[in-house]
Structure formats: C-alpha cells, structure tokens
C-alpha cells in the first residue's frame, strides 16, 4: 500500500430519510469491503467510514454534502463505489 493512492469525492445525501441507521449500515457494509482507510466528512466533522456509530453521529439529513476520502490500494474504486451507494439512496429503491 502506498500513500499516494488517495481518492476523494463530494456527494450529496439524496434519499429523503437522510443518513439514518439503515443507510449508515449500507454504507459501512460497502466500505468494509475495501482495504483502503475511508473517512467521511461533513464540514468540520470527520468520521471513520467503516464505523456505523461514526456515520450516525454525522447527523446528515437529505441535502447534506459529504466528502468521502479513501487512502490505500483500492482507494479509487472505493470512493467510486461508495459515491454510487449514496447516489442510489443507499439501496432504498428496489
């Protein structure tokens, strides 16, 4: 793993219920599939993207802008996949 493998993306929470328990679970389960370290930031607050408690503590209702950062070998794929999870409303549609 090298430090230069770093990827970042901005997303907006688009599901109506916001980043509550279930979406947070969805996010964490996906994030945990990657080796890269994952951080999620809302403004000043930064949390571990593999921690459901952390994500829940962000308190992100619909419309919240989040920055996902990954560091590690699969960083690029991790942010891509996680952005898709957010954009697809954490699987809340079918």
């Amino acid at each position, binding site marked *: 793993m090298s430090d230069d493998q770093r990827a970042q993306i901005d997303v907006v929470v*688009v*599901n*109506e*219920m*916001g980043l*509550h*328990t*279930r979406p*947070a*679970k969805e996010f*964490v*389960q996906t994030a945990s599939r990657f080796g890269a370290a994952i951080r999620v930031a809302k403004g000043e607050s930064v949390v*571990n993207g593999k*921690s*459901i*408690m*952390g994500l*829940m*503590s962000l*308190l992100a*209702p*619909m419309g919240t802008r989040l920055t996902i950062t990954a560091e590690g070998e699969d960083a690029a794929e991790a942010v891509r996949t996680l952005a898709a999870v957010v954009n697809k*409303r954490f699987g*809340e*549609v*079918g």
Partner: protein
Amino acid sequence: MTPLETRVLRGIGAAPGIASGPAFLLEHQRLRVVRYQLEARQHDDEVERLREALVDSFDQVQHLRENLADRHEEPQEILEAQAEMLRDPQLLEEPSRLIRGESVNAEWAVAKMLGQLRSMYENAEDTYLRERGEDIDHVGRRVLRNLAGQDALLPNIPAGSVVIAHQISPAELVQLHRARVVAVATDVGGRTSHTALMARAFEMPAVLGLKDVFGKVDDGEMVVVDGLEGEVVLSPTEQQLARYQARALRLAVVEQELLKDRDKPSVTLDGTVVHLMANMELAEEVGFALDHGAEGVGLYRTEFMYMERATLPSEESHMVDAVKVFNGVGKLPVTFRTFDLGGGEKTSELLRIPSEDNPALGLRSIRLAFREEGLFRSQLRGLLRASAAGRMKIMFPMISGVAELRQAKSILAECREELVREGHAVAEKIEVGIMVETPAAAMIADLLAKEADFFSIGSNDLIQYTLAIDRSNELVNYLYHPLHPAILRLISSVVNVAHVEGIPVSLCGAMAGDPLYTLVLVGLGLDELSMPAAAIPRIKRIIRACNASEAKGLAEDLVRMPTVLEAEEAVREMMIPRFMVDIDEEQSWELERRPSSGSYPAAPGPRAKRAGRTAPSSGRGEER
C-alpha cells in the same frame, strides 16, 4: 384485593384486531444507570466486561435475525443495522477510554456515549432523523441489560399476555410475537413507527402513543386492546370482557372461514366477474392485502406522504414509495390517486391552505394541485419514474369538468416528456382515470369517459355532494345514505355510459366494503370494488354465492324505491338472512374505518342504535 375500576385509554390504533389478557409490564426501560468509581487495577476487567456484553448483544441480535421469517424484510434491515452498531469498534473504544480515563463503570460509560449520540438525534431538525434516534435506545438498552447480567432476551412472558411498555423495539416485538403475546400497548410510538408496521405484519393488535399506559396499569390486571379503535380498556367489567372476547373469537372464526376462498376468483354463479381490490395508504400494507385475496390496489391514497413530516415530500420519495408498493404486489395493478388534500379534514400544515368557510367546496384535491402545480408535478414525476416497475394507473380526484381532466392530463404528459428527455425509464402505457365524486362528473360521465381510461366512483363524496349533506354535521348526517335513489341512479348512469365508451368502472367508497351493499353494486354493473383489504374475503363470499341477474333485479327495484327506508328494508331482507347471519351490526361498520372515507351514519329507524359510533373520525387527525 379490591377490584380495580374500569378505565378506558385512547391512543393510536396501530394494528387492528381485538385481544384481551392479563397485563404484563415490561420494565426494562426503567433500567437505571448508576455511576460508580473503579480502582485503576479494575480497568482491564471492566473493559473486558463491556466487550463481552457487546458480543453477547451482537449474538442475540443475530439470533433474532436468523429466526425471523424472510417476508419481514423491514425488521431484518433494522436488526442488521443494530448488529452493525454492536460490532462497531467505536462502541467499545469510546466507552473504554472513559472507563480508563475517568475510572467509571461500563454501564455509565456506554450510557454516556450513547446518550450524547441520542441527544444529537433528539435535537435534529429533520423529523425522520429524530425518529431514528430510537434505534440507538434499543441498542443501548440491550447492552445495559447484558452488562447487568440479565438475559437480554425478554423475561418469560406467559402466552396470552397483553404486554404493556413504555416503548417496544422491533426486535422485542419479534420476541413477543414468538412468545404468543396477544396484544401490545405502549406509551410512545405512532402509526408509522417500525413497531407499528411489524405489529400489523404479525397481525398483533396494538395501540401505541397512549402517553402513560405504563403508569396506569397494574401487573396482571385484565386488559382489552382494541387496535381498530385505538382503545385500551383496563379492568373491563365482566360483561364488557365477555363482549370483547366473543367479538374477538367471532372475528377469528369468521376470518378463518372466509379466507378459505382467498385464491378463488371473484365471480358470480352466473359468471360475472367483479374484481376485488384493496384500498391502501402505506406500502407496508401490501402483504396484508395480498393475504386477504386482493387482486391489486384499487385506491392507493397518497395523502399519507404529506402527513407527519416537517418538509414536503420530494419527487424521490414519491418514487421510492411507489416502487415499494410494486415490489410488494408484483404484476398486480395499482391505482395511485394523486393527492386529495384540503377539504378541511386532511389539511397538512405544510400546505398553508387559507382557512375557508366551506372547505368541502373549497380549495381541495385537483384544484389544489393546479394551484400548487410544483407540488403536483413533483408527485407526477415521482410516480412516473416508478411506473416501469409495475402496472401503474394514475387517478385524479375531484374532477368536475372535462377541462380539469385535460389540464391534469397535459401536465402529466409534460412530466412524462421531461423525464424521457432526462433519460428516465417511464412505462409505455399508463392508464389515466378519474374519481367520479361530484354530481357534475356523474352527469357528464359520457363526456369524461371519452377522455379517461377508467372511472372510480368515490361514493362517500358523491353522496355528500349529491345529497348536500355534510357528513360531519351531526344534525343532518342521518340523511347521508348510500341507498338514496339519487345516488343509485347516478351510479347506474355512470356505469352505463362508461360501458358504452368501453371503460371500466370501480367503486372505492365505504359502500364497497360493506356487505350490505354488495348485491346492489353488482347489480348496478360495477366492474371492480375497492375496499379495505380486511373486507375482501366477506365481499368475495357474497359475490361467489349470488347471481348477477338477481343482483340486477334488486338494483332495478331499488332505483325506483321512493324512500331510503323502503330501499334499506328491501336490501336488509335480502342480504342479512342469506349472507350476514354470522356478523353483528357493529362489524359491518368496522369494515371501512379509514380516515378519508369516513363512516356514514345510521338512518333513523332499525339501525339507529349505531348512532353512537357515527361521528366521522379522522384517524389521521388523532395521530398528530
């Protein structure tokens, strides 16, 4: 022991049905967290104790999940999230730091951490997030119980108990269901809470939101829970109890018997098919509807989307909701009615409808949609985006002229074009119909039928507007009667002209679910009846046991009956001995209790004793 006084508490009827039994008080929410000081050498052991409690809690949740039948998808997701929280290293690390840093016990440390998170949720501006804070409570309670060395599974609850609690988590409800608890009553919780949804899925009568039932009931006290009325009776008199029990038993026996026909077609002896559909307002009700033999959803009310929330629903939320319905019904058709808001009873604060002297004749339904076109478009776009996922029909309420139908259709067409341009999948063919609920629409049904794909007669409003009777006015509501010849003639003529134009007609008011009127409606030629799903089995039984020809004869007689009283006698004479001997009057009134249809009152005379139950009540109003 002195006998306790009978008390009646009112809450939110969250899952229908009646059950009685001795109260079992779940005390766990009173778990008190005591802080005590540790010595430095105890730190490691305390952290280990916490770690074990978290592992135990996780295992218990996993165990619950595995034992949950597949069809309860919603609870699965919630339990999965709880499991995820329980194995989150943060839930161990943060309290461990407190244990070591402040030399406090594990209970205190966990409670402090979760308490902080909880209060963030409590203060959230977003309603949804605020409600989701409960998930944190449920996790916290479990960990605390495990720390206390208590079995976090609920104590042994005798089968047949009525469980009384401040709050019941979805996971706990699973256990209660398995322990064969007959009903639940809680201080907090609403009709859309996860606990309510699960109670409905399990068909366990539930009254929630009683505020302080926990403080009012004694352990072991006899309790009746009426989940339909949202009533809890404490220490009922012997007669009351006997009456409730008899009713519950009768309901159960009758239900079992009627459900035998569930998978049989709804067709008369002489071959006339009358489709039986469900009226619904929550996607979660689909399972219940299908279990009762619904052939689809004849009326999906969307008003609920605008209730109990801090913001107006987005296009996405309409789409999500519709897709959820389709996921449940599969290939069966679903008729979505665009929002029927306004008119007094269902006004959402979000809409800021000006106060009106006469809301029933005011800015409501389609009129409101045209005035708040952005809101209307966002609903239509949301629905259209879900349309590829199932058999969607769209229906406009309160249409009183062809111009309104054209305007609504043209907005719908614009929305469709936009979506297609934006690259969204939209179903090729979506049938577009209207509610026929104004006398005007009924009179010009021939003109409307040329431009609509189907009609659905909203009998409640049609009666109200035709007979010029305010259903909620107790001074005149005795005049509100479905068998008034004016109503029967209007329905008959709407059906006839629709059939000339080749479009089907459904009826979705309270009449559809009342067995007294089944033959009349078959005789009037309705193609489809849409009702609360619970009513379907009985209505189907009647349809399967009658001839369309005799029904037609009855309808022809009735439209010429000069008075309602005569019409009613004729109908009762025909229906009760043949089809309704096993039900009492009360029940037929309970078949349609949904808010927007209201209930109609008794005419003076044979049915007058029902007068006490007749005030139209808005279930939604009570929830807010």
